[in-house]
C-alpha cells in the first residue's frame, strides 16, 4: 500500500490499513501476549472484548515515553545552559538567557507583578515542556504532538489549577480566597445570588477545562490535518487503476499537490506549537495573578 512506502509516521499508529483516528492510539512499548493476540491481523480471539491489556500495556506506551523523553530533555537543556555561567554569555548561555528572560520578564513580571519570582520556575518549566512536546509533532522519530492525547493536557491543566488555587489560599486564607473568587466587586446583593455561582463556575471549572481543551484541540486538529495531507496525499499519489475502483489520473496529480502543500501545513503547525505553549503559560500566570489580587 501507498502510505507505508513513505514511512513518514513511524512512532505512531500501526499498520497502513488502520491509518485514521487510530493513528492517535497509544501502543505499548512492551506488549503483553494478550495485547499482541488481540491487536494482530485477521480474526481475533473471542476473549478480546474484555481485558485485552495488562497494566504494563496501559502505562508503558510510546506516548508516555515521549512525555518522559521531553521532561528529561528539558531538564538536561536547562542544566547545560546554566553550566558555568560567564559574565559575557556565549551562544549556549545566550539561548538560555533569552528564553528565561522572555518568561521571567515578558510573562511572570508583567502579569503577576509583585512576588512574581517564586512562580518563574514553574512557568519556565511549563513553557519549555509544552514547547518540546508540541515540537515532537514536527520531529522525525516522534511525529506526534504528545498533547494531542487529551489526558496529557488534563494533567497540565490540573497542575496549573492546583498552583493558582494554592497561591490564592496561601495569600488570603481559605475563606478570604473563596470570597474573592465568588463575590464580584460592586454587585448589588440581590444580583449576587445569580452571579456568585457563575463566578464560581467560571473560576474553578471552566478555567481548567478551557485550559486543557485549548491545548488538546489545537494540537489534535493540527495533527489530523497533517495526517490528511501526508497520508491521504501519498495514497492518492500512488493509486493505480489496479489498486482502487474509480481511479483517474487526476488522483495522482491531487496527491502530489497535497504532499507539496503539506510543507505549508507543517509550517503552520510550527507556529501553532509555539503559540499554544506560550498561551498556556500566559494564562497560568494570569490565573495566578487573579488569585493573588485583593479584589477584582
Amino acid at each position: 500500500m501507498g502510505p507505508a512506502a513513505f514511512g513518514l509516521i513511524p512512532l505512531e499508529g500501526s499498520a497502513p490499513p488502520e491509518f485514521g483516528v487510530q493513528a492517535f492510539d497509544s501502543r505499548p512499548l512492551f506488549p503483553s501476549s494478550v495485547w499482541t493476540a488481540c491487536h494482530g491481523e485477521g480474526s481475533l480471539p473471542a476473549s478480546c472484548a474484555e481485558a485485552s491489556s495488562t497494566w504494563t500495556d496501559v502505562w508503558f506506551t510510546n506516548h508516555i515515553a515521549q512525555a518522559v523523553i521531553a521532561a528529561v530533555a528539558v531538564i538536561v537543556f536547562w542544566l547545560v545552559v546554566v553550566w558555568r555561567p560567564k559574565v559575557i554569555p556565549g551562544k549556549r548561555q545566550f539561548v538560555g538567557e533569552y528564553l528565561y528572560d522572555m518568561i521571567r520578564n515578558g510573562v511572570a513580571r508583567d502579569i503577576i507583578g509583585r512576588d512574581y519570582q517564586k512562580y518563574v520556575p514553574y512557568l519556565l518549566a511549563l513553557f519549555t515542556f509544552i514547547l518540546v512536546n508540541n515540537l515532537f509533532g514536527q520531529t522525525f522519530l516522534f511525529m506526534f504532538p504528545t498533547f494531542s492525547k487529551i489526558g496529557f493536557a488534563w494533567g497540565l491543566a490540573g497542575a496549573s489549577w492546583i498552583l493558582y488555587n494554592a497561591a490564592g489560599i496561601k495569600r488570603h486564607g481559605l475563606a478570604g480566597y473563596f470570597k474573592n473568587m465568588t463575590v464580584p466587586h460592586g454587585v448589588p446583593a440581590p444580583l449576587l445570588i445569580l452571579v456568585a455561582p457563575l463566578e464560581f463556575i467560571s473560576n474553578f471549572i471552566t478555567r481548567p477545562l478551557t485550559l486543557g481543551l485549548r491545548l488538546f484541540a489545537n494540537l489534535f486538529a493540527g495533527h489530523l490535518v497533517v495526517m490528511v495531507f501526508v497520508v491521504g496525499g501519498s495514497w492518492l499519489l500512488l493509486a493505480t487503476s489496479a489498486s482502487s475502483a474509480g481511479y483517474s489520473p487526476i488522483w495522482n496529480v491531487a496527491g502530489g499537490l497535497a504532499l507539496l502543500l503539506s510543507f505549508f501545513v507543517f509550517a503552520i503547525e510550527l507556529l501553532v506549537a509555539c503559540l499554544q505553549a506560550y498561551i498556556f503559560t500566559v494564562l497560568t500566570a494570569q490565573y495566578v495573578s487573579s488569585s493573588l489580587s485583593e479584589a477584582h
Partner: protein
Amino acid sequence: MSDPQGNDGDGFTALSYIVAGLLLYGGLGWLGDHWLGTGFLLPIGLVVGVGLGVFLVIKRFGAKS
C-alpha cells in the same frame, strides 16, 4: 508576542464568564424542562445565562479603560 500591558488572557477570561453563564443557567433551564415537561425554560435559561455573563464581563473590565 508579549504585549506591554500583560493582558493577553483577558479575552479568555471574558469568554469563560459567557460559557459559565450558558452552562449554568442553560443547564438549570434544561433540567427544569426535563422534570416539568415544559419546553420554554431552556431558551430562557440560555438568554439569562449569557446576560449575566455579559454583566460580569462589563463589571470586571468596564471600569479599566
